[in-house]
């Protein structure tokens, strides 16, 4: 008995470091994901989505949203790197979870997929509001689109939308174009216009509106047209990523497998674009794609290799920075043509686009301005779908020393001439005076 417990203790000692594996600076993809469901049958009705996540190496932990033992943290350490909330009708989470705990979770840099549906509770709406997403206040409203619905034999009220207005971003949706429309049935939301961190990934068509399909409209609906977003994302300033969807059925096996034909279009697709859309979006959310890392900023005078402590005005300098992109498994060199550097003191004096050698090194050279002071090299890189890079390095710039000016000013030649002729004249005169006989 003693031997057994000792060996167990030894084994657990070895396992402890493994247990603390999570995402880190060197490996930004999330590992452990908590999935909150309000109905365990979602495990089987959304099995394709969960099995693709598992096959990509995620460690999914399924729990009921009202489970009283729910906890995101233990002893100050987060237990999970990502959170999927497929519980649109839950009024209160169990355990120690509430909307503040989820907001803290995202604040710590961790990712979230939140899905509402036609019976979204106030809790889910509150979490979405924190991220800048406003769901339609009417709880019986659904998105209806009479021009862009999916033609179907069994659904006659045009609430199953075939949407193809996707955001143009390779980082968020991958390089392969999603050919088939994406099927959606659920609630509409709009984005807060003052929030510049949210983005519409799947928008509704201009003829869409959000209303109760079984009752007549008595006043114009609040949300109409392309202002309605069906799926939105948010990338926080600490690069935590959040996906908010108005439809839980978007992730379901049924819509993954079903064919789609958009009303008014002759193209009939065997398989909807849902699976590709959801897979690519989950790759983006869990930092398998679009995550950048930068090395330190390197600068030196042209012809030298060391970094000087101070520059002089009108010096020629060279600047370079290394940026790598996470490919899901390793760091690859990042290739882009829009990385820029600023030479900044209260406002940018020089702003240049860096050229790349395609191996991750971005470089440029320019002349230091003729203003002296304490400047900063600033690289503030924001690209749709990529993490934001914000790097800076301070460097002072001094004016000319007294002996760095030009030695003789051409305009002053008469004065020099006067001085030297005086000296020469004195010399000659004294010579003559002394030695004349």
């Amino acid at each position, binding site marked *: 008995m003693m031997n057994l417990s000792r060996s167990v203790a030894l084994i657990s000692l070895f396992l402890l470091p493994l247990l603390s594996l999570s995402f880190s600076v060197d490996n930004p993809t999330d590992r452990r994901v908590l999935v909150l469901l309000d109905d365990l049958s979602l495990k089987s009705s959304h099995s394709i989505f969960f099995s693709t996540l598992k096959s990509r190496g995620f460690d999914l932990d399924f729990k009921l949203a009202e489970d009283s033992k729910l906890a995101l943290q233990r002893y100050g350490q987060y237990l999970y790197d990502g959170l999927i909330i497929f519980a649109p009708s839950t009024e209160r989470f169990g355990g120690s979870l509430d909307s503040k705990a989820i907001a803290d979770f995202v604040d710590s840099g961790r990712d979230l997929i939140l899905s509402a549906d036609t019976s979204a509770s106030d809790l889910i709406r509150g979490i979405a509001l924190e991220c800048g997403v406003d769901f339609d206040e009417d709880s019986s409203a659904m998105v209806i689109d009479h021009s862009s619905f999916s033609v179907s034999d069994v659904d006659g009220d045009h609430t199953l939308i075939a949407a193809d207005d996707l955001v143009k971003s390779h980082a968020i949706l991958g390089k392969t174009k999603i050919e088939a429309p994406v099927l959606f049935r659920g609630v509409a939301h709009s984005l807060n216009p003052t929030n510049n961190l949210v983005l519409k990934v799947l928008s509704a068509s201009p003829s869409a509106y959000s209303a109760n399909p079984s009752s007549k409209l008595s006043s114009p609906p609040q949300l109409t047209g392309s202002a309605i977003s069906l799926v939105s994302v948010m990338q926080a300033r600490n690069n935590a990523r959040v996906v908010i969807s108005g439809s839980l059925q978007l992730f379901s096996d049924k819509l993954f497998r079903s064919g789609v034909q958009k009303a008014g279009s002759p193209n009939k697709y065997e398989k909807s674009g849902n699976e590709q859309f959801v897979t690519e979006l989950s790759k983006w959310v869990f930092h398998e794609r679009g995550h950048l890392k930068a090395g330190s900023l390197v600068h030196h005078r042209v012809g030298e290799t060391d970094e000087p402590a101070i520059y002089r005005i009108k010096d020629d300098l060279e600047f370079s920075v290394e940026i790598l992109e996470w490919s899901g498994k390793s760091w690859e060199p990042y290739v882009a043509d829009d990385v*820029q550097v600023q030479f900044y003191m209260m406002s940018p004096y020089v702003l240049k686009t860096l050229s790349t050698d395609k191996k991750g090194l971005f470089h440029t050279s320019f002349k230091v301005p*003729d203003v002296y002071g304490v400047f900063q090299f600033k690289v503030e890189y924001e690209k749709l779908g990529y993490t934001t890079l914000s790097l800076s390095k301070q460097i002072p710039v001094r004016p000319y020393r007294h002996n760095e000016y030009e030695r003789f000013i051409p305009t002053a030649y008469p004065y020099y001439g006067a001085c030297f002729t005086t000296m020469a004249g004195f010399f000659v005169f004294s010579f003559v005076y002394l030695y004349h006989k």
Partner: protein
Amino acid sequence: MFVLYDFRFAVPLILSLPSTVISVTKKEPLKVKVITVLGSKAPALNVKLAQALCSGSKGSVINNQELKFDADSATYFLDSFPKNFDVGKYTFVFEILPDELAHEKVYITEAQTKVPIAATGAISIENAEISVLDSDVGSVESQKKLDLTKDGAVSLSANHLQKLRLPYQLTTPLGHVFKPHQAFIKLKHESQVEHVFLVKASGKKSELVIVEFLNVLLSQENSLLSNIGHIELDLPERPEKAPRPPLWKEDFLGLVEKLYYLSGKYEIQLIIGDASMENSLLSNIGHIELDLPERPEKAPRPPLQPTDPYSRYGPKAEISHIFRVPEKLPAKQLSLVFLGLIVLPFIAFLIGLTRLGVNIKSFPSLVGAATSAVLLLYVLFLVEGKLSIPFLILRSLHQKI
């Protein structure tokens, strides 16, 4: 392996429809399948459509219609619908009776199976027009016929004293008046601010009238529009000399205020759609130039519009520092000329000396040597001859201090 030919239990029969959406325009037949619970074929049956109840009206459109059986596809179908089967939402009530009496004990079914059916059809839109009317008199300032299938290039202009009127007629394939679920007119300003208005339909015509006008009562009396739907809204602002109507409501939300006093070009879009409509439309009718009064101090500002995400993220314009241009100095030639002028007296001095007949006898005394050394050092310093030995000696002495 199940064998359900056990006469102790009756086998339930299930009625299902492969498609619950029927197109009235395309004249598709209604198809019904009947199978047993385990999926095997049902025996010969008599399937009857007992009733077809429309959600809006009372009474059934179809009564006790028997469905024909198609042996190839094993479905029962109904291919002819009565003349008054219009678009809309129905509940079909089916009754199944087995043909042979013997089977009555073997198979059981529900007494009546109710299935919701949606009947769709192509709705025709006719007589669409758009016109701007002068409010007082009701006279038409400009009127244009609309072709809603094309994106129009209708261009109108109006000010806040005029009305905009957009009548049209919607009829079902059977010729009845159709009231769609979605009938919007959207006015979109250049600054992306949008306004949506509902078209209320009543009677025969649907019509949208936007009254941008001061006087509520006047427009109510003025409606030739008594049996036609309209939107009437009124402004709180009035010029001084306007007559006060007897029923003035200070808390009316004026249309001008609703439009945030934004004058300019508005795009008009007409969107008509319904679940039973097979040809829902979104039509860009054209533009209207609206001339609205000036915004007063306390009026609400238009809501912020979201910025285009693609423009937010692009690279910024390059900035290169413009170096200070050095002051414009006089030409070099000028200074050389003056240099020459300055050297002239020295040359004149030398010439004068030779004229006087100087001659140099004994060579340098100490004083002379010392003076010339000092001068030499001075010159060397000025010319920055850093490699001269005396200079170097002096420099090292200075540094030691």
